[in-house]
């Protein structure tokens, strides 16, 4: 069961990342690593990498988001690692955006992405299985 307190530390609900997320990558030690965006809110996101990664300490993340007719580019957002979990299936990380290092424009874009996802989220059908 979820024995770690991270779930409780989340300030708001995380929404399942939709297909509008593209080119999600983390920057670590000068290299770029492709990751899958898992869930998201304006404060942070969970990512998953299906290859084994070494210990990560400080990372930044980049992704683009298709918001209606606009492609929002969020580059090298400074993050803190809230939790990490490795398994034989891949490595999972919880990231919180480091607001002290984000520009106002980046914060605005994160809020816009969060609002867009929330507006398209169906709390009764998170995975769209009842459609």
């Amino acid at each position: 069961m979820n024995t770690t307190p991270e779930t409780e530390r989340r300030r708001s609900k995380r929404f399942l990342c939709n297909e509008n997320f593209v080119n999600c990558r983390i920057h670590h030690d000068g290299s770029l690593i492709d990751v899958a965006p898992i869930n998201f809110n304006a404060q942070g996101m969970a990512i998953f990498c299906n290859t084994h990664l070494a210990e990560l300490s400080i990372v930044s993340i980049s992704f683009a988001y298709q918001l209606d007719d606009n492609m929002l580019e969020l580059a090298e957002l400074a993050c803190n690692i809230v939790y990490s979990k490795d398994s034989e299936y891949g490595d999972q990380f919880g990231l919180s955006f480091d607001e002290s290092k984000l520009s106002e424009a980046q914060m605005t874009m994160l809020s816009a992405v969060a609002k867009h996802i929330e507006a398209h989220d169906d709390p009764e059908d998170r995975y769209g299985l009842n459609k």
Partner: protein
Amino acid sequence: MSVKRSEIQVTVDQLELGMRVTRLDRPWLETDFLLQGFIIDSQDDIDALVRQCKYVYVESQTVSKTPDMERRDAPAGLFARFSKRPAQRHSVSSNRPAAGLGKHRPTPDTRIAHINKISTERELGGARVTYGDAKQSVKSIMDGLRIGRAIDINQSRAAVNSIVDSVLRNKDALIWLTKIKSKDEYTAEHSLNVCVLSATFARYLGHDKSEIQQIALCGLLHDVGKSKIPDEVLNKEGRFSDEEFELMKQHTTFGRDLLMSVKNSDRIAIDVAHCHHERMDGSGYPRGLKSHQIPYYAKLVALADCYDAITSSRCYDGARASMDALDIIYKCKGIQFDEELALEFIKCIGVFPPGAIVELNSGHVGIVISNKDDNKLRPKILVVRDKDKQPIKERVIDLSAPDDRLNAFKISREIANGTYGVDLPSYLKKGLVLEHNTEGKE
């Protein structure tokens, strides 16, 4: 070897740690105990029994040698027994794929609609015994492998059969028990949980009993190769280095070799142990098989394996919520996991599975007891905290019941075990009296 169970009456001054209390000298409802039957694991338990009872009944086990075991002593007998085993149904069936790699999920025509034969509440007591016994079997198998003993496939089958019987009686009771994790017993518990989850998923998909038993056996034995991984790597308190991870990956090949060396081993179990880390996009290991080359049962067990790995604590990291695991499975469908099976698995487990601790929109906190396949967002819940998060007299509410008072309630989120003092293992240990005080009962 057969284990015969009976119960014996003992006075409360004879009680000792480790005894399994099956009955009291008075009805359970007249006592403080929540569970109807439990294992004494602290002096507090003994003190509570002394306060409330004069005598109780505890389980007694008698171990005896069975004709099966006698046959095992005679090699010719064992060989004869299995060589005469009838051919498997699928290998002779005209309208179903052949055995082995060709196994497929049931079609709408062949799918069996399993129904719960008894309630979760009634199954839970027996399921605890089944789970405990099966865990001992798995530990004994894994410990034996470490010292070079061969896998006792009959012991594995016996454990699997009792698990499958429970899953067929009720789909939720054993899932409940998989939610209680112990870091110290990760490998044995994980194998057993994958067995339970695989059996539950197979039941959901509509497999017949013999197929469910075969799938559950594959789940139980999928990680036997880990017995060949050095303890210092297996139990490392930290992330694996690249070299260690490469070594860990070899458990698939070790598992295949171990199972192939066992007489009468199940061919599909060998395939699953070898192939459960293969991926749909061909990037898996050990062979980088393509989607169509991966055995169906390996695709099925991989989902149960991944789900339990993410929701369990290993030596140094914490477990993640069920929804985190389902999110990852959903996002990796078609790449890592078979897309169709991944979606079915998510439906099978549901967003709020049995054993999940949830907060309602009213502020009340409860534990999910069971849910319906067609309405997983409105399960049956044991409410344990009031809207101010204070302990209350436990009561069961069925959110799917056609009751206006209950329709207003919705689950707002899943919360971590231990939050607001709600500790899942202690509820289970104390025993849940769930048949009473049920609102909206069907």
